[in-house]
Every structure is written in C-alpha cells, then in structure tokens.
C-alpha cells in the first residue's frame, strides 16, 4: 500500500465518491481546471466535466446559497471555501438557511451538503489565511463540524460527511495537508460523525485535541511518557459538533485529569465547551483543574510571530506535567 498525504487522501476520496454517485457535485473558486489552490479537487474537472465540477464566480454567499438549492433539489454538493478566512461571507446562508431549513420546513426540505475549507496556521501565509474559527460554525444548531487530523481519517470522514443528511462544515487543517504521509486503505472503514477516537489508552491523564494540533500533542505525549513514565489517554475529537460527550466523560471519569490543546484562541473556544461538559458530567471525578493550551486572545499574528502564539510541544508538555502534579 502506498503512503499518501491528506491532500491525496481527500482527492482520492472525492474521485471515488463522484464515480460512485452522480448526485455528488463539486463547486468553488478555482476548484475545476486548476484543481483547487491546494489541489484537493485535482483531476475532477477533467474526469467529471464542468457541470459537476463548477468553477464558480468569487462569491462565498452564493456558493453556499446555490448549493443549498442544489441540495434541496436532490444533489449532494461538496463546496469549497478557498480559505476559512473567506467563509464569513457565507455565514448568513449557513446560520439563516442551511442550518435551519430542516427545522423551518419540519423535515420537508433538507440540506445535505459539505462545506470544505482549509483552516489554521503554519503555512507562512498572508493575513486571513491562518485562523481557527471552528466555534463560529459549532455554535450554530443544525450544523455539524468535522475536523480530520490525518490522511486516513480525512478520507473516511469526508465520505461520512458526504453521506450525511445535514450540512457539514469540514475543516481541513492545512498545516497537515502535506506534513506527513501514511498508508491509507482504499476502502476506508467509516468514521461516524459525532464520535471521537481514543488514540492511546491510559490511566493517568486525558489529553484532548483535534486538527493540526493532534500531531504536536502526540509528540508531546511521547516525550511525557519517556520523561515521566505517565500513561496518558489521548483523544482525537474529530467531530466538534455535535460533540462526543460520552467518550470525553468516560475518559475523564477514569483519569480525573484533563488537558485540552486547541489552536483557536482561548476564550469562548471549543476547550471552554469541553470543560463545561466535564463540569456537567464528571466534576466529582476530577483530581485537578482542567488545563487548556491555546492560542492567545489576539488576532492571529502574521507568520513572523505566528509560531510563538500557537501551542508548542513544549507548552503542551509543561501543561501535562503541571496537571499531573496538581
């Protein structure tokens, strides 16, 4: 089996799904002839033609708005926001229509579509190309938010997202697009939306992360084990909303200690929600305050300073040691 990166895995999945299901359609800025600025849609235009692989005008609101109509008509659109930083122009279509068409029509009209978008920092890009704003989407009832972290789970989750009956915001950590390769099965076992994965089983500490931070977290965990002999349990969230409360609560009830690592800024972020879940369901099991390693509450700096602001392996390691000693 060849080793492939996340872009290749996403691309291969799109090829497979579009071959198998003619209702699947791709639309976005530069997704056709150019294959997308990150090449995730490479080769689709040549294989499936311009009616199913649409190079759209540059208008994020209409990309989603048109896709909502397509989805209601019976198609399964997979649209691309070229960068998550441009996605705010579609927010009223997401909040005002995609998320609530099912409720508004009492299930008569549904919006099964996928909104793919590269997000997060670490690729030395210009302003507006490095943010992690998953909470904007996760705070919207009726929208599912999925964030893969590896080539394998990216392909599997994209397939699940396309098969899903609801609008799914599919956030691709662009720093992980090409940063590592792994063997990816051609027929990936499905990963249900709403289920986190326990990557390492342990008894002493629960460590939760998602997206590009997963790799840094795993490396920090490796150091922790080598340096302290502690046994951390590592959870890859995969779905931000609806969140897998059961896996989180089960783990924290067992370990009594938790560190959350998020690339997003600190306040009102997903980590805050996870802490609230633990408060609701596992407070009495806690042996130490839940710790979080996050970006600071400032707009993401340009890349000259970016890495100083994102959680580093060292910060993650220190947070874990602190929580173990609390």
């Amino acid at each position, binding site marked *: 089996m060849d080793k492939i990166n996340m872009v290749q895995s996403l691309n291969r999945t799109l090829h497979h799904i579009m071959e198998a299901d003619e209702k699947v359609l791709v639309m976005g800025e530069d997704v056709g002839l150019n294959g997308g600025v990150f090449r995730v849609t490479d080769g689709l235009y040549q294989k499936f033609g311009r009616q199913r692989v649409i190079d759209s005008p540059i208008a994020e*609101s209409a990309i989603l708005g048109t896709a909502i109509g397509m989805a209601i008509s019976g198609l399964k659109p997979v649209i691309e926001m070229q960068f998550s930083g441009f996605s705010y122009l579609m927010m009223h279509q997401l909040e005002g229509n995609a998320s609530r068409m099912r409720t508004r029509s009492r299930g008569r009209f549904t919006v099964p579509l996928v909104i793919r978008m590269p997000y997060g920092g670490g690729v030395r890009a210009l302003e507006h190309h490095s943010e992690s704003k998953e909470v904007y989407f996760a705070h919207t*009832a009726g929208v599912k938010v999925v964030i893969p972290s590896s080539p394998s789970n990216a392909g599997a989750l994209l397939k699940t997202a396309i098969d899903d009956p609801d609008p799914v915001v599919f956030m691709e950590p662009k720093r992980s697009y090409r940063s590592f390769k792994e063997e990816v099965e051609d027929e990936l076992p499905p990963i249900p939306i709403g289920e986190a994965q326990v990557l390492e089983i342990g008894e002493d500490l629960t460590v939760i992360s998602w997206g590009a931070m997963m790799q840094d977290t795993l490396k920090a965990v490796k150091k922790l084990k080598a340096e302290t002999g502690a046994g951390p349990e590592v959870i890859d969230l995969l779905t931000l909303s609806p*969140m897998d409360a059961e896996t989180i609560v089960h783990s924290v009830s067992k370990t009594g200690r938790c560190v959350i690592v998020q690339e997003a800024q600190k306040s009102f972020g997903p980590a805050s929600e996870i802490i609230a879940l633990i408060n609701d369901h596992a407070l009495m099991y806690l042996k130490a305050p839940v710790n979080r390693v996050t970006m600071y509450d400032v707009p993401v700096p340009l890349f000259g300073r970016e890495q100083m602001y994102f959680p580093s392996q060292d910060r993650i390691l220190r947070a874990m040691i602190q929580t173990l000693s609390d």
Partner: protein
Amino acid sequence: MTLRTLDNFSIDYLQILDENGNVDKALEPDLSREDLLKLHYYMTLSRMADARMLNLQRQGRLGTLPAATGQEASFCAPVLAIRDTDWFVGSYRELGGRLMRGEPLVNVLHLYNGFEEGSDNPESPRTLPISIILASQLPQAVGLAYGSRLQGEKDTVALAVFGDGSTSEGDFHEALNFAGVLNAPVIFLCQNNQYAISTPRELQTRSATIAQKAVAYGMPGIQVDGNDPLAVFKAVDDAVKRAREDKGPSLIEAVTYRMLMHTTADDPTRYREEAQVESWKARDPLIRFEKYLIQKQIWDEKKQKDLEDKLKETIEQAVKEFESKTGFKPDAPFDHVFGNSFYLIEQQRAQFLDNLKKETENG
C-alpha cells in the same frame, strides 16, 4: 480613434390592462376562462384573507405578520405561468401566490401564530417556506433550477420572488451573476412596492429602474405594471418559455404599491403621505381585473357578490380550524435539528420535557 461605444441598452415597460380596465388587444395574453377565473379567485381570496389576518392580529389572535394588500397581481399572476413541478422560491409577501401554490390558509395562520407546523405543506412539494433574510433565497433558486436540470428534468424552472429592498443585498447581485454564468433557468421577479419598511425605492438605488440591473448580468430585464395581472403574467410567461428552452434567466420588475404597513409592527404614517396612498387606490389590481372580466362577459356583480360571500365562509372555516387546533407537540423543535439522533440533543430534550412538566405542576 479609441473612443467607441461598446454597448447600450434600453428597457421596455409593459402594460396591457390599464387602470380603467381597457385592454391592449394586440398584447392580450391568451388565457382560458378557467385560468382567468382562477387568478381572480386567488387575488380576491388574498385580499380578503389579508384583511382578516390583520384583524386577527389586532385582536391578539395572531403575531406579527406582513401585509400583502395591493400587490395581488404581482404575486398571483406569476404562479399562473409556472407548473407544480417548477420551484416557487419566495420571500414573505406573496400571500395569494402561496395559496395558489396549494398552501392551505390554515397553515398560514399557524405560521403567523408562531408554530413551524404552518410551514409543513406536503401538498406543495416545490414551494419553499417563507424566507425572511432578504435576497438570501435567490441563490437557492439558482441551485434548485440548476440541480433539477442536472438530474435530468428537461424543462423545470425556478421562480424567485423578492422586493425592491432586496436588490441592495449582495445576494441579489450574486444570484443574478451565478444564474447568468450557469445559464440557470430562473425567473427573478421583483415586486417593487416602493418601500422597504420606511425607505423609499429612490434610496435603494440610483438606477432609473430595477429592471435595467439585468443588463449587467447578461440577461433580459423588463419593467411591467405590477398592478396589471395580464402584463405580469405575459412577462413571466415569456421569461418561463425562454428558461424552459435553455435560454437562461430573466429579471422582471413589477411596479406595484404596498397599500398597508410593512408588517403589523410598522406605522406607515411616520414616513409617507396619505395622498400618495390615495393616488395608488385608483390603480388597484382587483378593480381593473374585475372590469376586464366583466367586459369579457365572464363576470358580473352578482357573481362577485357570491364569490365574496363564499370566500368569507372559506376564510372563517380556516380561522375556525386554526383556533380549534391545539396541542402541538412542545418538543417538536428537537425533532428537526439533525437528520439523525445525538446524545446531547436527546439529553436536552429530556431535560426540556422534565422542566416543562415541573413548570406545569408548579403552575
């Protein structure tokens, strides 16, 4: 020589039936007696239902609702030009048009009484529910039209209805642009009723007409007398035919007037003169259409009286049905968040029902 004209444009205005009921025979559309009477029926029903609903609202029996009086030709005549298999993608001021599409009046009452059940209209599977965020429904119409064609429906079209205020929204421009580029079979019908709440049409755009905005997006645009049901029908029918033949989208500006308030929460005396309202009364679409039908000898005063009596009864029947229906499931909003079930949502549903039970017990 480098200065030359690359393009120029003109915009047509269409009126077939004037304010006095005189018809331009050369332009008169070939509508059957049944179609004419159907149109008249729904325009009249719409007017009477609008009045009754405002009355119910004033009595506290309905919540905030938009008034539709005066615009009946603009929103009913287009529906006559499309099929049940076409998409109707409206805003919120198309009462009679929606009734024509098969939405039961009782459902309209439930909706404006604050229950989503009012949008539950399986009788009308290709009519989208009301859309309140201005112009946001327009890109959806493009997607519906494109999607239906891509799935093998050879001549399905989408009729998108919106107001003059919506033409200032980005989604209006984005939707027309997408429709043009995708050659999507969409009819964009603007009900220019002169006001967006208090803001007059002149403050929305410097363009002399809304119709001419079509030119920039590479599609035909026409302005019609929006209180003339024959002109509205003809313009929409022409646009529908073009769309069915894959000749792309069109924009129609129907010039009409909102005779009453924006919604029941609005007081129009704050921003417009009564004299202006009076001047539009003479252009009432119902009066001229009745004159036309009488001239065609398919209508008379007795028939009109009988119809109004019958519609009064129909409306009262709907009101009765509306008021007798109670006990909508309180936790219904939890049913339609997602297409599948999730622990956190179901847990909150249980908490909600438990809280409701305790609140009821505690009075």
